[in-house]
């Protein structure tokens, strides 16, 4: 059945600031899903709390707006229960690198077959512009006129240090490329981490569309992790595209010995089970 992009539209009014990167991120996401032929009812979107989460009612699909920082483990639970669904965790740099950074780390280690979109606008936007670990050094932020006291986290470096199976970086100013990246991430069988360099005109106007466009450089995918690291560490250029893949790593579910010969999904298996054979083993 053909899918039309309008099937992903809702009637809810937008609440994002004019010029917010989220408009294009949603456009790119919808386009990717349409081009992959996914019906909205085949998609589970697990949203974080924050500006990105406020997009939960602006796109169709089975959407969940749960707890701050927890969109990854919720998405993982959903994926394990029913792998027929395309599961996407949608989270900001605050939720992902602060409140729930353990989920990112263990998600990569476990290589669950889901896609993670990290909206990196370099601040906590919805709570009016607090520091995150991607905020530029020295930039005055909410309550900290002299900028952050702590160090920074480079998302790409963190991800690549954990033997990931997929890392990509997109840009909200280039929805066409971002859409292709998201498509690759969904198709990849494993934990696909996509960092999205997101424009925040209200709390991060210094990183404007024009400035970022001057720094962005599209790159090709590699399976050479050292090369990928070199690109990530570059301070002059912001490389975008699928930066690193490792197709040799099996996804979590494929590693489950007891599920190897099972064709059904957990959601299809809820019924009364006879426990007598288990009970006699325990005696």
């Amino acid at each position, binding site marked *: 059945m053909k899918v039309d992009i309008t099937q992903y539209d809702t009637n*809810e009014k937008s609440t994002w600031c004019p010029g917010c990167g989220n408009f294009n991120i949603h456009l790119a996401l919808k386009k990717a899903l349409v081009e992959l032929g996914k*019906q*909205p*009812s*085949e998609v*589970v979107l*697990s949203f974080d*709390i924050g500006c990105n989460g*406020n997009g*939960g*009612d602006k796109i*169709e*699909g*089975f*959407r*969940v*707006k*749960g*707890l701050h920082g*927890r969109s990854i*483990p*919720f*998405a*993982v*639970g*959903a*994926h*394990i*229960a*029913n792998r*027929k*669904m395309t599961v996407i965790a949608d989270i900001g740099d605050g939720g992902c690198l602060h409140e729930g950074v*353990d*989920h990112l*780390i*263990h998600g990569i280690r476990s290589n669950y077959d889901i896609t993670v979109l990290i909206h990196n606008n370099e601040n906590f936007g919805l709570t009016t512009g607090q520091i995150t670990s991607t905020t530029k050094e020295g930039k005055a932020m909410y309550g900290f006129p002299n900028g952050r006291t702590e160090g920074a986290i480079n998302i790409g470096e963190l991800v690549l240090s954990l033997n990931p199976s997929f890392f990509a970086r997109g840009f909200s100013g280039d929805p066409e490329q971002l859409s292709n990246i998201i498509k690759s991430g969904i198709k990849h069988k494993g934990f696909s981490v996509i960092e999205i360099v997101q424009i925040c005109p209200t709390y991060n106007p210094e990183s404007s569309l024009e400035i970022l466009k001057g720094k962005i450089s599209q790159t090709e995918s590699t399976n050479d992790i050292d090369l990928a690291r070199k690109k990530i560490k570059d301070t002059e250029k912001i490389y975008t595209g699928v930066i690193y893949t490792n197709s040799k790593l099996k996804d979590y579910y494929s590693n*489950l*010995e*007891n*599920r190897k010969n*099972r064709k059904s*999904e*957990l*959601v299809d*298996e*809820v*019924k*009364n*089970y*006879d*426990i007598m*054979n*288990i*009970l006699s*083993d*325990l*005696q």
Partner: protein
Amino acid sequence: MPKFTLILMKDRFSIKFGGHSGQGINMLGGFLSKALRDLGYAIFAYREYPSIIKGGYASYKIDFSSSEIFSSSKKTDILVCISLGALDEYLPSVSKNGIVIHSVKDFQLSRENAKYIQENNIKIVFIDTSLITQEEQASLIMGNIVLLGVLWKIFNADLSILEKIVVDYFSKKEGTDIEAEKRCLKAGYNIEGINDLSIKDLPKIVSTKWNESIVLTGNHGIALGAIAAGCRAYYAYPMTPATSILEILGNTYQKTDIVVKQAESEITAIQMVMGSMYMGARAFTATSGGGFDLMTESISCSGTTEIPLVIVLGQRAGSGTGVPTWSGASDLAVALHSGHGEFPRCVLCASDPIDCFELIQDAFNISEKYQIPVILLTEKQIAESIFNISRLPSSRKIKRGIVQNGEKRYILTKSGISPRWLPKVGNKTYLTNSDEHNEYGISTEKEEDIVNMSEKRMRKIISLKREIPEPKYYGPKTPNIVFVGMGSTKNAVLDAMKISKKAVGYLHYKYIYPLSYGKIFKLSKKGVKLVLIENNQSSGFGRLIKEQSSFYISNTLNKFDGRPFFVDDILDYLKQ
């Protein structure tokens, strides 16, 4: 030499194994539990151990009787020790005319212990297991099997019963010399010079049905109940006393095909449960107090999003890290009140493996039908003690309350239940929202929406209360005194009721919240003395009864020393 006659608490007898952590105390206890059962006794076994891997001292205590028992006695009729520390520690718990068998060379009694032994006519027997194992060409560690043989001889029981259990166990373990184990067992059984220790007053074996019974911990009951109820995923982070659920479900996963995941934190575990339950699989998690605290934001989230959620809260002693491997029941308040905001929930509490087996199934049914978080309380005493039960009841019918498809996910209804349909290809999509929302799930800040949705959710408690069973009364028709309680307190009271000559009853609560309190009023009107019994200091259950019914039970029996109620505790109270 005097003849040893043990004075028994009516029809009960007890044995305690003591040793270092890591010396195989649990294995010995397991052997003897099963052997006694196969001999025709009902058993109850209780473990005490420190929160360390090696060293310290640990014990495995078996009480047995001709009829069903559910709790331990304080004193020990026969103490079997394989380490000095355990011997010093447990000697004062040996009953009058009791026996101590040990393998500790050059053991010197402290002055205090020597006095105790003399005053109580306790016989101490040293078995040189290092010599015997050497003679039998067995390894030194098999000395514990020698002691088991000695014990079995004292009971004058058929060796083949015990031997079969030992052989069965070791044949499943690779690299063990089964013949050497058998030789050691026989050497202990045939040892000379212990004839005067034979016990004449063991409980009578009245029926042989116990040898067909099953031996389970509460956590086994939880795991088996979850399997029976169609649970397909278990996500957890290790924490005593819930940890062994992970072990049981993990070790059986090839047969059940359940996904068993050790998550990186309790928060991860509970979020994964919610993700799987949201999709329509059955999943749950289990933890103890500290881990539960970490989960509480998700409990509130479950309340608002109406995603079903099942959590087992295995209680242990203390706040903070507390006394991690010991028992208590002081987490009712957190089960009832955890999570910000106002939302409906259900709290259940188990007392034994049968409760565990049935209540985890109820938890899934209630959680799915009412789309609320359900918290099932257990205690270390229930989770890890070994109960002997004649059989498990048949499984509960699965009730899910799921519809094929729908229009408004959070439709306002009289019952408060908005029919739930699953996220599935072709179904109507919806937003599951932890923001306050309208009937479609869309975030709202309108007064009317906020009130309507909050009232809708709270109506589910009224609907649920209608199907919550009454508490169960145990005891005579016209009691003088009735204990009111939940959890493992039932077990000690029921055992004491068999011994005490007083007309004692027990009102047992399994369904804690919403609370059904009519029976308390009825008993009170009859003029019965009600006594609240709780394994905590501040009577959390009594506070709930007061809050819900305005009825205040002023008599209380509390215990909060990390130990469960022993049958003696109840008998002592009744003597007052």
